[in-house]
């Protein structure tokens, strides 16, 4: 009879975390910045159809980095969650906090129970009627849920990106400034240049109607960067 090798839980968790971190670090990063009228989610993504950012509900948006199929599953689950909740109760009852908790539970479960952890991180943004009401939540591969203030980065080189954003950002920027900051930061830190068409940028804009999510077009991104 063969005995299974004993692996201490510390080692197991560490190995899994390292595996997930490596996968995430390989992916292109996403930057999230609050601006005067809402929240900007932006990153490099040459694909025009496989999005990393998405509308979840009226004032809630999603961004994911890492393996596409894995965060896509969470994105779809999030929309299903939000629509079910909004349909059963009231539209205002759908909040980023509820969804972030649900994501944290799910990712935590997957991290401990599945063969391999998800190699992803997701960010949930919500805007309110005032800039002070905005909320950003970041959920890591192991289910760690964190509350982010004003800006954040996830994916490859995230520490460098976050640090640089922190240095360059003082007051709430307007949308143009936020786009420039996000794009410049990514280009500088990743030492690359990116065409307008190869960006993916989406905003939650409190001036829009009921559904506050909107994608920025390459020409809008180009115009903002040219300022």
């Amino acid at each position, binding site marked *: 009879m063969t005995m299974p090798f004993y692996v201490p839980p510390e080692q197991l968790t560490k190995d899994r975390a390292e595996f997930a971190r490596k996968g995430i670090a390989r992916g292109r990063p996403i930057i999230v910045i609050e601006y005067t009228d809402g929240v900007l989610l932006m990153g490099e993504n040459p694909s025009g*159809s496989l*999005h990393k950012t*998405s*509308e*979840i509900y009226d004032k809630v948006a999603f961004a994911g980095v890492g393996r596409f199929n894995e965060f896509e*599953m969470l994105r*779809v*689950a*999030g*929309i*299903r*969650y939000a*629509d*079910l*909740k*909004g*349909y*059963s*109760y009231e539209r205002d009852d759908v909040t980023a906090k*509820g969804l972030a908790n*649900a*994501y944290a*539970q*799910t990712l935590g*479960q997957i991290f401990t129970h599945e063969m391999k952890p998800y190699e992803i991180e997701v960010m949930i943004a919500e805007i309110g009627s005032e800039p002070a009401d905005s909320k950003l939540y970041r959920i890591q591969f192991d289910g760690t849920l964190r509350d982010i203030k004003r800006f954040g980065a996830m994916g490859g080189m995230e520490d460098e990106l976050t640090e640089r954003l922190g240095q360059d950002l003082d007051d709430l920027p307007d949308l143009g400034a936020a786009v420039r900051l996000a794009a410049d930061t990514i280009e500088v830190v990743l030492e690359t240049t990116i065409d307008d068409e190869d960006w993916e940028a989406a905003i939650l804009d409190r001036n829009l109607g009921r*559904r506050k999510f909107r994608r920025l077009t390459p020409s809008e991104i180009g115009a903002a960067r040219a300022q």
Partner: protein
Amino acid sequence: MSGNGPVLGDILPGDPVIPSSSFLSLLETHGMAPSWALGDRAGSLEIPEGTTVLAVRYADGVIMAGDRRATAGNVIAHRRVKKVYAADEYSAVAISGTAGMAIELIKLFQTELEHYEKIEGTRLSLEGKANYLARMVRGNLALAFQGLVVVPLFCGYDEADSVGRLYTFDVVGGRYEEQDYAATGSGGSEAKAFLKGAYGDDMDEAAALEVAVEALVAAAEEDAATGGPDVRRGIYPNVAVVNRDGITEVPDERLAEIAATVLGGRP
């Protein structure tokens, strides 16, 4: 689903082969789809019914209008019912028939369209939306035999062909595209009779709005269940305009002006 709302683990899209963009099938999986289990005598209940709604095509798109009255038997149940709704950014849906069911049906239809759009990243085609609505009406067939009939009216701007289109339905889920105008509900035939004479090809928005409101006035004059503009209480029809720029609901102030013109000009 637990008492505290949906749990994410339950709604992870399970089978990757079956498209998970249908909201109704999600509701059904969780036993949350609206259902009205009624006995044989349901038809004898006096449940509020919505009455006249209509849609008119004009040069740039479509206009949809509905009166505000709901009746239960010979009683006016509600005076300010909303019967015309934005289905999504480019389409409108209106209801006639058993009001409670119809309103729930519309809410479900709106959620379904938005759900599809968010998950797929693209809107359903106008034809696709009409077909889906037909399926929802068909799902109600058993209740229709008990007297609980829901017949919607659907219209929208076809982004692919750049035209306004309108659709009518019957209780078995038949879906019919109409040419110029359509009306349904208890005052529907009166409204249609009026529209037949008043409709003009390529009317502009102002003319079409006037025609739509006057058709409701004409229906209200002959059909007791249809409420015309009520100047004293400040109750005006619900009117939505759908064109290239999307859907807009016409504000009450503008409708008050149109109603004044229409009522003033009538014999």
